């Protein structure tokens, strides 16, 4: 009943991870009673469950997820939204107008036009149907300012940190509002571009170094140093 890895070891697809009484977790699969990795990532054992934290992955929609997307098409009764996923999402006009949609009166492109950005929640999604979005909750809807960046979606938990510690530190230190789309798209809104740049720099560092130790310390240091000599950040 062995395992074939050391904790946090970097593995590639197809590598044999464990045999016997173990459970196949994230980014693994079972064939003939053996557990193999299915993505490049760091392998870990959680009780009897073998997980691979993927270093490369894409976003797959899940109902309830908050995502950030852009309008790519204005249709007859709604919008097609690019949410950086294998599937494009739909936002119905009735969801935005919060009343029955009248094609003769409502000009949808005046509400949301191609190129506009939104924060939305995945309302539904299954194998046969593209994701449906909703913006009918506080904090959701059209984005009017701020800067966007993308990270690999699997890195979002690292950006959040334990109990939100990492993201709150960045927010406090940079004075920025930050919305983390679970699809890997992040909106940073600050009082000035320098603050936004700093927040984005910190997030990028988390993405690049998420598999290394002492990251929290290095992020703290980055933010503190930047505040001490702000001119360097502007470059």
């Amino acid at each position: 009943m062995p395992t074939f890895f050391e904790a946090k070891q970097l593995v590639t697809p197809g590598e044999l991870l464990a045999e016997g009484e173990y459970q196949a977790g994230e980014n693994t699969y079972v064939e003939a009673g053996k557990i193999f990795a299915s993505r490049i990532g760091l392998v870990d054992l959680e009780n009897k469950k073998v997980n691979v934290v993927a270093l490369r992955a894409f976003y797959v929609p899940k109902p309830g997820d908050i995502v950030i997307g852009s309008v790519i098409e204005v249709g007859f009764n709604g919008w097609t939204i690019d949410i950086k996923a294998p599937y494009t999402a739909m936002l119905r006009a009735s969801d935005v107008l919060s009343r029955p949609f009248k094609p003769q009166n409502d000009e949808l492109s005046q509400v949301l036009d191609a190129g506009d950005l939104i924060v939305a929640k995945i309302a539904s999604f299954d194998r046969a149907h593209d994701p449906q979005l909703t913006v009918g909750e506080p904090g959701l809807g059209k984005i009017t300012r701020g800067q966007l960046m993308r990270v690999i979606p699997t890195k979002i938990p690292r950006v959040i940190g334990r109990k939100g510690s990492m993201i709150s530190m960045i927010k406090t230190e940079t004075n920025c509002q930050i919305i983390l789309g679970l699809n890997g798209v992040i909106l940073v809104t600050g009082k000035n571009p320098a603050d936004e740049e700093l927040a984005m720099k910190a997030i990028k560092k988390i993405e690049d170094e998420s598999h290394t130790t002492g990251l929290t310390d290095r992020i703290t240091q980055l933010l503190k140093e930047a505040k001490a000599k702000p001119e360097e950040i502007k470059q």
Partner: protein
Amino acid sequence: MSEKHEKLIDKKGIRLDGRKADELRSLKLEVGVLPNADGSAYVEHGKNKILVGVFGPREVHPKHLMKADRMVLKCRYHMAPFSVPERKSPAPSRREVELSKVIRESLEPALFPELYPRTGIDVYVEVLQADGGTRCAAITAAALALADSGIPMRDLVVACAAGKVEDTVVLDLYDAEDKLGAADVPVAYMPNLNAVTLLQMDGQLSPEEFEKALNMAMEGCKKIYALQKEALKNKYMTTKVETKEETEE
């Protein structure tokens, strides 16, 4: 082939390019070389220089190729006009159409198509320079590009040819051996699942020679697999320190 040519392999069993019968050409593999692609890889296998870009999973175009219950893999193998001594027309040849198909079929067993219904993946192979064995080098690189794109895979796919020159079974034929030799057997292999996903042959081999060539090609594949893993890991090994970092629970 009726022309007299220099002996491809000498009495000591050394080939024209200095290799022993079961020796691979030099290999260089790089991952993540194209910023716009979802996954990419570059391979130099001997004088072959091949770039592979992967896009997807994404919406399938044209729409009628979409499958309600699974992801479709599309593949285009293409040779640059300047990749061979005489300019090759950029229009796809029949050979390229066939190779696109067999390369696709060599990669498909490594994927989980049922995971992402109604989507497609595009694998674009551009041969920048060709010197024999391009389909194999392309498969090795394509598997890396797929892994780099983050698509779940059963295994990496690695490919290498064996064949026969003069009367000897040899590994990894380059262009002159391919053209003047007696047989060429390209093989693609999933090393952890012990599964052959591409097998072709032209030339003539006895059943015993075929078995020998097949085994030699698979041994070659295993050696390339070690380099393939290393190339993939190298991309993420910039900082070697281990993580003990807390994540959101």
